[in-house]
């Protein structure tokens, strides 16, 4: 049985002289508006799943399944189309609810024409370009006289009036899409060319990505051969949305730690053991040329120039944290240090 419109529905309204004269909305205006809204929701879903955008990038089957625009039955004689955002199964999932909020926020920002609001709603310039490009489907030809509006629910002000947003949408989608910055590739470290210091990463979907690495990184590369890693950097993306290479890399992060987990450490002549082993996923910061291990809950922040020194350095840091924080009187510690103290005491105990 078809669901009735609900308060969570979005309303897409067609108005203007042609609608009144025709007693209905032209099919191409309806189709382009619905496709635009579906494209916007797919882009929000792709962004939520960390998938890069591209001019010919298609949403994955999962995104299409989880982020669908559902047309509800219209009221008799109305030019208002109620729409829901839900999974294809009809479930109003948390991710669909977030997509609804993101869609309305983006449309309101376009409608306001205020750059600060637009950047706050869509901070990534590439995402901004693609969202504006998709929203252009809501803009009917100026001479048509058709007015398209969108609002959250059946009452209250419109979040988006196409005519009001026309100038800003056209400005935002002008030129080529901006380069992809701060993109992440997750994949298996497939081929290592030690002679030329080039590594190839094979993501689960999409094409493999090659990049060169500094000699200092070689031990980490060797330790992660055929394992999954993530790479973050400024990427070049082709039209189908695949990352082809990196213009610059910020960070390489292990996903399957290569160092043995810490099961205990020595401090003050005593042995302390962990309630459960502490795994050590190491990352490499390309800018500082530094190996990094961070565990905020335990207060560990280890930086080393050599991969081989990381484990000893982390053990040394645990020794320091234990003597200077876990054993410190509460009244000496700032708030965040007290939290660390509690976490250390909960995680480690004296070996018997």
């Amino acid at each position, binding site marked *: 049985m078809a669901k009735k419109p609900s308060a969570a529905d979005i309303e897409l309204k067609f108005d203007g002289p042609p609608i009144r004269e025709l007693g209905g909305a032209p099919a191409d205006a309806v189709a382009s508006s619905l496709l635009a809204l579906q494209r916007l929701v797919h882009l929000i879903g792709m962004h939520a799943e960390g998938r890069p955008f591209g001019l010919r990038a298609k949403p994955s089957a999962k995104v299409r399944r989880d982020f669908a625009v559902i047309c509800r039955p219209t009221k008799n004689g109305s030019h208002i189309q109620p729409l829901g955002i839900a999974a294809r199964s009809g479930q109003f999932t948390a991710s669909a609810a977030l997509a609804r909020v993101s869609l309305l926020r983006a449309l309101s920002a376009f409608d306001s024409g205020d750059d600060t609001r637009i950047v706050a709603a869509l901070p990534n310039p590439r995402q901004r370009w693609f969202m504006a490009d998709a929203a252009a489907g809501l803009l009917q030809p100026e001479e048509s006289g058709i007015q398209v509006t969108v609002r959250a629910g059946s009452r209250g002000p419109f979040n988006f009036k196409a005519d009001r947003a026309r100038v800003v949408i056209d400005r935002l989608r002008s030129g080529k899409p901006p380069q992809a910055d701060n993109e992440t590739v997750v994949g298996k470290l497939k081929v290592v060319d030690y002679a030329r210091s080039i590594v190839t990463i094979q993501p689960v979907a999409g094409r493999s990505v090659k990049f060169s690495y500094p000699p200092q990184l070689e031990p980490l590369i060797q330790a992660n051969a055929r394992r999954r890693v993530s790479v973050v950097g400024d990427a070049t993306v082709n039209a189908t949305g695949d990352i082809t290479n990196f213009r610059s890399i910020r960070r390489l992060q292990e996903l399957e730690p290569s160092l043995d987990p810490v099961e205990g450490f020595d401090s*003050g002549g005593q042995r302390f053991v962990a309630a459960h082993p502490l795994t050590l996923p190491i990352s490499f910061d390309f800018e*500082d*040329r*530094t190996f*990094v291990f961070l565990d905020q809950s335990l*207060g560990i*922040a280890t*930086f*080393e*120039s050599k991969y081989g020194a990381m484990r000893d350095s982390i053990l040394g840091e645990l*020794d*320091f944290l234990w*003597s*200077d*924080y876990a054993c*410190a009187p509460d009244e*000496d*510690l*700032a*708030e*965040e*240090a007290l939290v*660390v103290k509690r976490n250390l005491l909960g995680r480690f105990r004296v070996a018997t």
Partner: protein
Amino acid sequence: MPRDRNDVVDALRRKGFRHGGGDHEFLIYWNLAGKKTMKRTKVSRGTSYKTLSDDLLGMMARQAGLPKKLFLDLVDCTLHQSAYESEAFAI
């Protein structure tokens, strides 16, 4: 630009950093409220570390929660303790 280790340690101690207890190489930051924070920096010992290289200063800066340039400002005394707190503890 490399810095003399003693100069760096002296400057940090003037800005609220104190040596950790025991046999550690860490300088811990005590905030203006007189509480021990999680910000600290490791000072390498040994004769080969009398002068701290650019790389080492970069790592010390990250531990102290500052970009390297601001950390050098802190060491060179152009960044005051209150300014350090607002930079390093900004969320």
